[in-house]
């Protein structure tokens, strides 16, 4: 237990001292803060566009934005978690396990009666605490900015949904942090350790969803998950096979439902279950890393 706590505390300290990690954290928080403003600015303009169309007598359709939920303003945060959050988590994960191998301190640490499982769980918890703190800060920022936009503090249900979204974001970011830890443990070069999880992330975020839904890569930057092309049996079949592996799309789906995005319907539970299953599997894969791997040197 002592090893776990010591490793976790060490990880938090190292992350807070890393300037590049701080740069990414600031970028993430900055984008989350901006997302409400962008959402509000866009919604205001689109409402004015609709009112102009209505005044010119070009439509009689009801305003599609008349009943948008307060959480509409934070919908862009979903994509910032997939883009900035996941990449930030990868870098933190890689640095966590690569740091000891680069400086040679893993030899020193493992010369003590330290269980590698406890050591890795400690690092995982340390990273988890840092990511949780960042998400807590981003949730507070979102809550405050949406409250200002709406002119009143957010209600209980809306606040709980924001917290649920932060919890989902933590799960996704921890999956990528664990992926980073894994490549940091096994790679023989720092470049490979950083690059491999980036390639895996791009395959998960862009290639797999494209195969299953025919969505273009740039369209996948939309906070709403891609849908299978209608009337397409082949994409239905491929989508069913690739779907469980596209964890970023599963996250987008669950997050959109939690944030009450009307364009996504159904239950979020299957997506949440998949995310949790992947998180557990990744944790297991990382913590059973053999002792000799932790002590292996780097080629550069």
């Amino acid at each position, binding site marked *: 237990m002592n090893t776990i706590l010591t490793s976790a505390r060490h990880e938090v300290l190292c992350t807070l001292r890393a*300037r*590049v990690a701080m*740069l*990414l954290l600031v*970028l993430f928080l900055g*984008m989350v803060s901006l997302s409400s403003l*962008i959402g509000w*600015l*866009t*919604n205001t*303009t*689109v409402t*004015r*566009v*609709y009112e*102009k*169309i209505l005044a*010119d007598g*070009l*439509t009689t*359709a009801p305003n*599609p*934005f008349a009943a948008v939920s307060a959480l509409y303003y934070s919908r*862009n945060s979903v*994509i*910032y978690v997939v*883009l*900035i959050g996941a*990449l930030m988590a990868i*870098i933190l994960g890689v*640095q966590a396990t690569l740091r000891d191998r680069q400086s040679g301190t893993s030899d020193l640490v493992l010369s003590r009666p330290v269980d590698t499982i406890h050591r890795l769980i400690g690092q995982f918890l340390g990273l988890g605490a840092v990511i949780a703190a960042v998400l807590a800060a981003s949730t507070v920022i979102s809550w405050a900015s949406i409250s200002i936009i709406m002119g009143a503090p957010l209600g209980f249900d809306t606040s709980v949904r924001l917290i649920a979204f932060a919890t989902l974001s933590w799960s996704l970011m921890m999956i990528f942090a664990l992926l980073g830890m894994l490549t940091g443990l096994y790679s023989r070069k*720092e*470049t*490979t350790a*950083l*690059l491999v999880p*980036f*390639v895996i992330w*791009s*395959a998960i975020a*862009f*290639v797999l969803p*494209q*195969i299953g839904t*025919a969505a*273009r*890569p*740039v369209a996948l*930057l*939309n906070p*709403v998950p891609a849908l299978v*092309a209608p*009337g*397409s049996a*082949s*994409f239905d079949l491929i989508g069913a096979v690739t779907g469980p592996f596209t964890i970023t799309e599963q996250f987008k789906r669950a997050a959109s439902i939690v944030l009450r995005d009307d*364009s996504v319907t159904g239950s979020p539970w299957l997506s949440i279950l998949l995310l949790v299953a992947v998180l557990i599997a990744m944790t297991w894969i990382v913590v059973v890393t053999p002792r000799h791997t932790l002590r292996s040197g780097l080629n*550069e």
Partner: protein
Amino acid sequence: MNSTWIVAEKELLDLRRDRLFAILIGFLAVATLISVAVASADFRNQLDAYNLYVANLANSGSTVTAAAPQLFPLKLLRGGIEYLEILGALFAIVLGYGTIAKEKHRGTLHLFLSRPVGRFAFAGGKMLGLSIVWLGVVAALTAVSLIAVVTIGHAPIQGIDVARLLIAGGFAWLYLVFWTALAVGLTALSTRLSTGLIVALVIWLAFVLIIPQIGDTMDPDNQVPGGLFATLQIQKADELAVLAQFSAFDGIRNGLEVSSVTKHFERLTFAFLGIKDQYNQQPLSLVWAAMLPYAITLTVATLAAVVFAALATTRRTLQRKQS
């Protein structure tokens, strides 16, 4: 010039032996093939749906005719271009970082700098070598795209299509050299090597993914699935007239988009390949006239990045001790 060419030759040799580089380019080629296969399957689905619709119309005795979906071969490459925008830039950064990092790690940098070489021999040779590598990669990807369109997409290719593809390939080369040069400069300036890579990745994240995403998000027509104006059944002329009254907002949105070099590359390639409907099947002279500002900015940005790499990669920055 001689030492510059020797550095370039060494770079080419190194990359020919680099398995990681081969894997990255292989991944990009596979992603391009997948995107062509997906786009052509999607088109066949549309065609099937159209045929079914026409058959149903005929059975019901209707005389209404519907326009059949048309296959424009180069439109099948949209996904491939988007992969180049996102992943190509990422791999270009890794390549630029790797070229400086390997010399520092192996200790060959000090050996090279102990020789009587010119001020720009190292940076110039590295950039020359990497530019040649990217030329080869772009040529290979262009060939892969062309073969994929003909074999997987079953689309007929004409001479003009090849010309359009070659022009798009030229812009892809400029775009990739831009990111590589930026990474070379940033890595040379960083005391810790990984800092150079991570700073380059943050810039990539901001300019390739975030800024274009914000621009798309702010587009009024993107607020409703299927498009706001289509949902409200507004004609194109009316749409333009309404939007003209919100020019300030659109100016901000467009300003954000054009601040990203990625958008310049995207607009150029989409126009020349006819992916953007406005330029589809238009004569090349017309497309050139419309796209000249973007062509100039992309070229200037690439030249600026190369100059930055050359100025940043000095004897002093390269020999700084790692902290």
